[in-house]
């Protein structure tokens, strides 16, 4: 599962929906993998305002990735004057699209429920008493 997706996932339980702690989910015993993807500058630019940068920073610390800049990169930094993609864009692309969680667990900060991730697919099925 891409880190981009993880930046949008919340706990699936109804009781957690209204609490702030249900987002972001915290990775546990996560194994990372790198997947080659084609660079899509327009897509990254479109996603930028929707990203929760605070959540992205906590995620990077928890996964032991190099520290991210304190502020969200702005759209102007993504391309230089001639329209060529910059290093910032490449780094964002590597972080969001190419870094993925292959296996591990995702833990809700509110209820503590653990969602298992296997082969990059997270299991969000809830037993009926937890819905």
């Amino acid at each position, binding site marked *: 599962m891409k880190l981009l997706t993880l930046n949008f*996932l919340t*706990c699936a339980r*109804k009781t957690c929906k209204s609490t702030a702690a249900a987002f972001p989910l915290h990775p546990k015993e996560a194994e990372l993998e790198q997947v080659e993807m084609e660079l899509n500058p327009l*897509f990254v630019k*479109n996603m930028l305002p929707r990203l929760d940068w605070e959540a992205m920073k906590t995620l990077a610390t928890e996964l032991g990735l190099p520290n991210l800049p304190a502020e969200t990169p702005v759209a102007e930094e993504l391309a230089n004057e001639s329209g060529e993609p910059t290093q910032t864009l490449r780094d964002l692309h590597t972080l969001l699209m190419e870094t993925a969680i292959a296996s591990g667990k995702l833990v809700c900060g509110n209820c503590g429920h653990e969602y298992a991730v296997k*082969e*990059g*697919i997270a*299991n969000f*099925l809830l037993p009926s008493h937890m819905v």
Partner: protein
Amino acid sequence: MSRPEDILPPDLFYDDAESRKYTTSSRIRNIQADMTNRALALLDLEHPSLILDLGCGSGLSGEILSDVSAEEGGPHTWVGMDISASMLGQALERDTDGDMLLADIGQGVPFRAGTFDAAISISAIQWLCNAETSDVSPEGRLKRFFDGLYASLKRGGKAVCQFYPKNTQQRNLISQAAIKAGFGAGILEDDPETKNVKYYLVLSVGGGDVTGAVREMENVDVQDARRRERKRGKEVERKGSKAWITRKKAQMEAKGKVVKNSSKYTGRRRRTAF
């Protein structure tokens, strides 16, 4: 023909054998591709977008989303949800681009508000009309699903869900659940009144009117069943009013009945008797 919905719940029906059959059948693949392209045309996306694929199965529709050319606003990135682990296994074997979750869409959509630009769903949401256990109801599952979908789409976002309703009742159940969640909703019928009829539920968030989605398409008739908004400031004809009385008198006269002459006193109240 038997409906798979009537046989088993989706997570059990699509086991390894059935999933392989579904994914490798060229007939099903063609139909799925046609429907996905139709749904994409209805969504009318201009930029590379983040799309939610509900009931993504083995990623047949997702593949098409990833393959949209740059001229047509692609390629899109998608996140899929499906309840059948075997179907997702097929998707892994085929090495699709999107992320997938093993999840029941009837339990809600676990994404934060305003995540997706659009959502598509091919042949999936009719499964929500089945209640597999006694502690859930079709209405409850549809409500959880549409409420979750509404929240996870951004404002101005659209969703197109192709589905196979069992009957008119099921069709209305689904569309009314969508409207209750706050969507502007409409149903597009392809090949109406034939065996191959396809229903597309077109939903919009905050847009209100969905007829705009088909404005540029050919061979599409719009039937608007919404109640016409009452014109403001225009007096509505009340029973017993002068306008009502003159209309009724004209009606009776046309039938050939004897009707009293009209005068300036017609329809006036008598003064209160002492």
